[in-house]
């Protein structure tokens, strides 16, 4: 500020010199020049691309989205037939990517937290097992792990006729895990309402117990009552309303199982590969987060009479979370992006369906690759935004 005042304080130097030496003006000029150069660069690339495509007689534009797709996809969360459009096929691929990414994030977080805490365990066996797990799987490329799960584990399973029979009429074969499909009959809606009511009641109970403890110091075993409500209320409703739920059991007909839900080996391999790989990184992040809290915190908590469980929950984890969450976000993004390796093992994700089959049938590489990149960017930015919001929520307010 002193320099700035000094310059403006000498009007005798003339306005030209003062403008050049004004860091604010200079900053704006540089920013403007950079912006113009960047916009010009991208505009040049865009016009050049369009011109080159036109000259090479390569079809361009986004009209193909509404054309008939004409190919089938093995796994779809939404109804899809070959009569539908490329746009619909794009959605199918996108949802398959999101499905495996979301499940992968949840599972790898659970495994990662358990292993991370396990590695700090004083129990020799648990500690060593966690270490071996982390050091092995972290150091093998994820593509190899996917191929391992697909080729070495799932593909060597016996055929559908000789598959392993599991409880509840399920079976495991090289066609995947086949489980019965629940069929919801009329009247099941009452049970759904009961579940919602139970959840709301448990949340209310927990808040009431907390307020009571703050006010009176008396603790209530909210977990015990909560579980009772959560299981009891829906179960009673379900029985009273006449058990309106049946199962469609898979049956071996012709080549494959008919009926039931088939969880494809490609999906299982991808999910297992991504989960176990990413969990190693999450475990290390969790371990680092916990180790970052000095032991003095634990000792201080013990000194004021907190029990080990409460210490972990109220003292260690809240402080560790602010160390854990930013790198955890990166791992979630990595998992989502790594799911594009699905193409190697035949899982119909976005890359396989859209920038694989659709790209080939339409031949419009520029548009398809551009959209694919845009989609991954959007997914990543959305994940990132959510994690930043979560981070701000759990971050300690320092004074």
């Amino acid at each position, binding site marked *: 500020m002193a320099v700035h005042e000094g310059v403006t304080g000498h009007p005798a130097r003339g306005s030209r010199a003062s403008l050049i030496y004004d860091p604010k003006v200079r900053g704006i000029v540089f920013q403007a020049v950079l912006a113009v150069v960047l916009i010009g660069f991208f505009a040049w*690339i865009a016009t*050049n*691309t369009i*011109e*080159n*495509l036109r*000259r*090479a*007689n*390569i*079809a361009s534009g986004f009209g193909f989205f509404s054309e008939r797709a*004409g*190919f*089938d*996809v*093995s796994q779809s969360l939404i109804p899809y037939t*070959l009569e539908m459009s490329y746009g619909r096929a794009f959605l199918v691929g996108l949802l398959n990517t999101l499905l495996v990414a979301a499940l992968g994030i949840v599972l790898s977080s659970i495994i990662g937290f358990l292993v991370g805490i396990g590695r700090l365990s004083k129990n020799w066996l648990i500690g060593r097992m966690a270490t071996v797990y982390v050091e092995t799987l972290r150091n093998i490329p994820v*593509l190899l792990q996917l191929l391992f799960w697909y*080729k070495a584990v799932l*593909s*060597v399973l*016996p*055929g559908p006729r000789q598959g392993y029979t599991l409880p509840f009429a399920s079976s495991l074969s*090289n*066609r995947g895990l086949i489980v019965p499909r629940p069929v919801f009959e009329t009247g099941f809606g009452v049970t759904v309402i009961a579940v919602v009511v139970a959840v709301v009641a448990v949340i209310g109970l927990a808040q009431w117990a907390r307020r009571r403890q703050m006010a009176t110091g008396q603790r209530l075993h909210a977990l015990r009552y909560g579980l009772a409500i959560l299981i009891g209320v829906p179960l009673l409703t379900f029985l009273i309303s006449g058990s309106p739920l049946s199962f469609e059991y898979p049956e071996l*007909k*012709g*080549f*494959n199982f*008919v009926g039931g839900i088939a969880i494809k*080996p*490609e999906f299982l391999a991808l999910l297992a590969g991504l989960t176990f790989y990413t969990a190693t990184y999450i475990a290390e992040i969790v371990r680092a987060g916990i180790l970052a809290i000095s032991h003095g915190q634990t000792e201080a908590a013990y000194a004021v009479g907190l029990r080990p469980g409460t210490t972990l929950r109220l003292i260690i984890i809240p402080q560790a979370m602010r160390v854990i969450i930013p790198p955890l976000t990166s791992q979630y993004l990595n998992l989502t992006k790594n799911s594009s390796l699905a*193409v*190697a*093992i*035949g899982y*119909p994700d976005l890359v*396989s369906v859209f*920038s*694989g*089959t659709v*790209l*080939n*049938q*339409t*031949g419009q*590489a*520029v548009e398809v*690759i*551009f959209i694919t990149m845009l989609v991954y960017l959007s997914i990543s930015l959305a994940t990132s935004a959510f994690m930043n919001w979560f981070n701000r929520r759990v971050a300690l307010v320092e004074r």
Partner: protein
Amino acid sequence: MITKLLPIAAVAAIGLLAGTASAATLDDVKAKGFVQCGVNTGLLGFGATDDAGEWRGFDVDYCRAVAVAVFNDRRAVKFTPLTAKERFTALQSGEIDMLSRNTTWTMSRDTSLGLTFVGTSYYDGQGFLVRKDLGVASALELSGASVCVQTGTTTELNLADYFKRNNMTYNPVVFEKFEEATAAYDSGRCDAYTTDASGLYSIRLTLTNPADHVVLPEIISKEPLGPVVRQGDDQWFNIVKWVHFALLNAEELGVTQRNVDDMRNSDNQEIRRLLGTDGTFGEAIGLSNDWAYNVIKALGNYSEVFERNIGIDSPLHISRGLNGLWTSKGGIQYAPPIR
């Protein structure tokens, strides 16, 4: 993994480089001293490396034939192995000079990709490969089957159409590389494997136990396979097209690798024009007049190329069938005359 980046690289190339499409491919090829040819990543009989690492196959010989026509050197060619998904992008971006990779000629590929099909070097059709112990005698009994297929092929679309037309259900398991699809079929992941019939014969030989598998009799589509070049370069298009016709004409006229030297002095005017003894047909397409002589001397005529790679002299034992000459063998291969 580098090949995975190819579409992105190509997109970047199309965006950044100006005017690659209009350049004369023949001049570029002559300047660098070799033909860059896109081939299959490993389809026995059509495009695959042998034990010594040398590329061999029917499609590979078409690359070599063009190299011989231009340079009179069968080694003046470099091969780029491409998956079905990568092949057109590689040609569009100028990474390869020609594509000879059992590629089906369809209208959309010919008109909207900026590419041109040169001709049909092999008339094929799509079929199914199944295990013998399934007891299936016809493709119409495949309802409910899991079918392994490679992405980015006409096969994927024909498969969908065929099952829909016959009111059958199926479960596609789609792979990017045909090696992956083959491995999945071999391990029992799929009940059936589908691709062009020629490919099925080739793939069957690479399975753990070829005798356990059988190709079903149904051919469900037309698959005319042939070399592809970029659109807008008529000279290069003519060279590749006439190399193909020269091979066919040589067979029709009885010119073989063994007798080609004697045939140069033949009394037959057609043979003399083909081999460059008379006329200046080579110069007209920017080559030397003995271009066809060189090709036949180095690789033989169409029949020799066929039998050596996929016919009776190969493990595939594919019969000429549709690919016989129209003039003598009851097939539909037919070349315009050189005159």
